[in-house]
């Protein structure tokens, strides 16, 4: 599901100490220059977040926020 994606936490702009405000998933760029992004909340009921948790459980790591 997340093959060749960049998965990174986002820092809250209005509260910089919160470096896990949400997760930004950036998919590979297509031939026309467009790319899909998925912004995922830290929310156990959200199935995209559940998928990321499974991706992490499979040995992958979410990049830290800038």
């Amino acid at each position, binding site marked *: 599901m997340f093959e060749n994606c960049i998965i990174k936490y*986002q*820092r*809250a*702009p*209005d509260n910089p100490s919160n470096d896990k*405000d*949400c997760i*930004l998933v950036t998919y590979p760029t297509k031939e*026309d*220059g*467009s*790319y*899909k*992004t*998925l*912004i*995922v*909340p830290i*929310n156990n*009921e*959200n*199935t*995209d*977040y559940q998928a990321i948790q499974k991706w992490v459980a499979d040995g992958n790591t979410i990049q830290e926020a*800038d």
Partner: protein
Amino acid sequence: MSTIEVNKITPVSGGTTVQVGESGDTINIPAGATIANAGTSTGFGDSLRPNAQALIINGSMEISQRGTSFTSNGYQLDRWSFDESTDGAVTVTQDSTVPSGQGFGKSIKFDVTTADGTLAANQYCQWTQFFEGQNLQLLKYGTSSAENLTLAFWVRSNKTGTYCMRFVKEAGGQTRYECPIEYSISSSDTWEKKIINLSPTAGSTTFITNSAGAIVNSNASGYRIAWILASGSDFNSGTNNTWTATSDRLGTTNQVNFLDNTSNELYITGVQLEVGEYTSSTIPPFQHESYADNLLRCERYYQVVGSGTRADNLMYFYAYNFDGTSTMFGAYNFRKEMRTGPSIDQTSGTNYYTFKCNNAADDFDGVNGFRGGIAGGEFYLSGGSSVGSSSAGQAGVVMGKNASSHVALVAEL
């Protein structure tokens, strides 16, 4: 008025029908009396449903907010998820081929574009609708009063043979139970209406009527129904019409391999799920609904905020400059309360969006943050792109600037 007191009226010898009164007569049922029916009743109008709204959402295949043609796994037509792991390929489209005279305008079409004639053990292809557990408490699973279910749908394919339905009671903190049920597509390229009955004790089992058979009463997935198009040997060890406690029994060994030829195509529409046991002659009619009502139900799971292809929807949301340089916030109230706090599905690209404020416009590729609940939320853009044509605190609007610009909220199961 005379009174006849009897316990039973039967036809005369050789007959099968008892008539009461003559044409034009009125047969009165006194107030407080009950007509008990343990058989089949006809001619009383539509059968009554315990569920006021259709349990299946978008059974008419009318709503397809993500597009009309798909080649990747995932949600495609609204509420319907496609998942295949074979060496073949299937293009899924919203189609206008429908059964004649049934009131449908759309169907879903599965078209094999790359064949896989020999499935590996771990390969499969299925099409699924997931249900929130809290919406199916009326099934009374987990009790001895668990209800029968009847699934009806129209199907058409050139690939005839035995197919399998897959009914799944999700674990929900207890045990997942599955029941495959076979059905046949008998005539090539001919619409056929299928009626599938599911008993809570199918296969003389008690999984569903015991407490672990309860459907989780929450907004999580509590149940799913899948149409199997292909299943390798790892996934076809189910026993027809029998509940089992083992997961991933997608079908039985009789399941055809729909992906075995690029000429194969299959259409489905008119999917309905009824509480109770019905036959082809007693099943209530499909609950047609307006496009708007259908869309509204789908929007609990997927809402388009804005799309560059919609001329009437160029404004995505109101926003304001946060710090005078590169941070923008934008508030958005959802049109319908969503199942849970949603993800944002966005199509980005160079200058796909623009922030209009202070008689100027700052283009950017896409927002990079969102936080919210089930009724609304807050987009933000931080770092990288400039929104410096405005000052901190000045408000404006965010609009799509490319035909492919697209922002949607996703809270699927």
